[in-house]
């Protein structure tokens, strides 16, 4: 994908910033590409990257579960977790000095793009503040991935993601409609909505509302 190096650079910076802020031993973002294709991991440092990638060969781990279950997987004490939740991954993580791991899916509903993993050297739960920060880093990572999609405008974010939209339900309904109309993925449908709003200097919420009211149908070609 063109621009993927730039995307990986941005994700790398995000991982290092997250590791410093939370703080954490290391953080990683795993980008899920097409089904059956090996995911790509970007991390704050090489050791975290290696540990993150081991999940793909083991086929198990917090990242794998968070992606499958579509919700965070928070494991504050790997060492005392019995029975082992991950029979191969947990010993490997402990061997690398990781005692706690927290995985956050990067997703909008059924559109899943990846997972943010946070590794800590000491056992213990994330404080309310750290949890909020981790979820915010996950949201930024999601935005970086959305900006890297086909048909997206990379030069300027349209709005502060979905949270800025007055009617979220209309936005997600529009996303589903555009997916069918254009025969694209859900992820790309969101990118198309954002690109249309940007190109026509309108708010994302207004564009979504018009799509749901069937006053607007996005063109099949890139806007």
């Amino acid at each position: 994908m063109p621009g993927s190096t730039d995307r990986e650079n941005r994700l790398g910076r995000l991982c290092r910033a997250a590791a410093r802020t939370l703080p954490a031993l290391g953080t990683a973002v795993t980008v899920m590409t097409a089904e059956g294709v090996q995911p790509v991991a970007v991390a704050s440092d090489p050791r975290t990257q290696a540990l993150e990638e081991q999940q793909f060969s083991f086929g198990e781990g917090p990242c794998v579960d968070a992606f499958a279950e579509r919700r965070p997987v928070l494991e504050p004490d790997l060492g005392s977790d019995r029975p082992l939740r991950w029979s191969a991954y947990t010993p490997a993580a402990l061997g690398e000095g990781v005692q706690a791991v927290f995985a956050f899916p990067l997703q909008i509903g059924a559109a899943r793009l990846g997972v943010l993993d946070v590794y800590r050297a000491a056992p213990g739960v994330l404080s309310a503040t750290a949890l909020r920060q981790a979820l915010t880093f996950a949201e930024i990572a999601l935005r970086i991935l959305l900006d890297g999609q086909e048909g997206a405008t990379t030069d300027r974010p349209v709005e502060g993601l979905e949270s800025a939209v007055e009617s979220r339900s209309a936005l997600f309904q529009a996303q589903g409609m555009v997916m069918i109309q254009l025969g694209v993925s859900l992820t790309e449908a969101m990118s198309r909505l954002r690109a249309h709003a940007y190109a026509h200097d309108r708010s994302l919420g207004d564009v979504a509302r018009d799509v749901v009211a069937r006053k607007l149908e996005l063109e099949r070609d890139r806007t």
Partner: protein
Amino acid sequence: MPTVSAQRLAEVFVEMADTLVDEFDVIEFLQLVSVRTAELLDAGAVGVLLADEHGDLQFMAASDEAAKLLELFEAQHREGPCLDAFLSGTTVFAPDIVADSERWPLFSQRAIEAGFGSVHAVPMRLRGDVIGALNLFGRRTGELDGGDVRIVQALVDVATIGLLQERAIRRGEVLTEQLQGALNSRVVIEQAKGALAQLRRVSVDEAFALMRGYARSNGRRLSDVAQAVVSDDRSGVAALTGE
């Protein structure tokens, strides 16, 4: 509002407990709570909102999911009784929306347009935290009497506990996992409404009714049906999507 018989109340609680089996659907459960609360208290509409990680209230389920009502629930992430109940942690009563319209000018206008006379909001509390609110709209103006308040409170408590029941309460992390998962399930349902509306050339309200009917008659979870509708391979729900 009518007096609720103890018999009927007991039946509702048993029904809710029966819903809390393994792998139950959080959205369907909150919908059941909303529908039963509306029936028991003869309310015009009931909805449940939960706070996301930013402390913004997000719509989760309602006794009636008409687009117009959804807007009324969603508008309260800016102002309204649910936001006040969530922020203060106390029940908010507005027995006469018109008389109270200065409190929430935009919300009140929408509520009046939607034909409501009164509105109440009850915070959902879990340990020390407020995690959301239940919203009750009345067609006419009027207070909730003491008995009704206690019933609503009991239903809200059940709804809150239900959020944690999917897996055993290991520790606090489960709440975050659960809430985040529930918030995302709601997004999937909206995406599926849009996709199905487009596939079947119907309104999003009709699309939701079709999805719910299909889930019920096939004994499947609403969230799973919604997931199937927006997946790449829709062959499992071809009877629903008409493909």
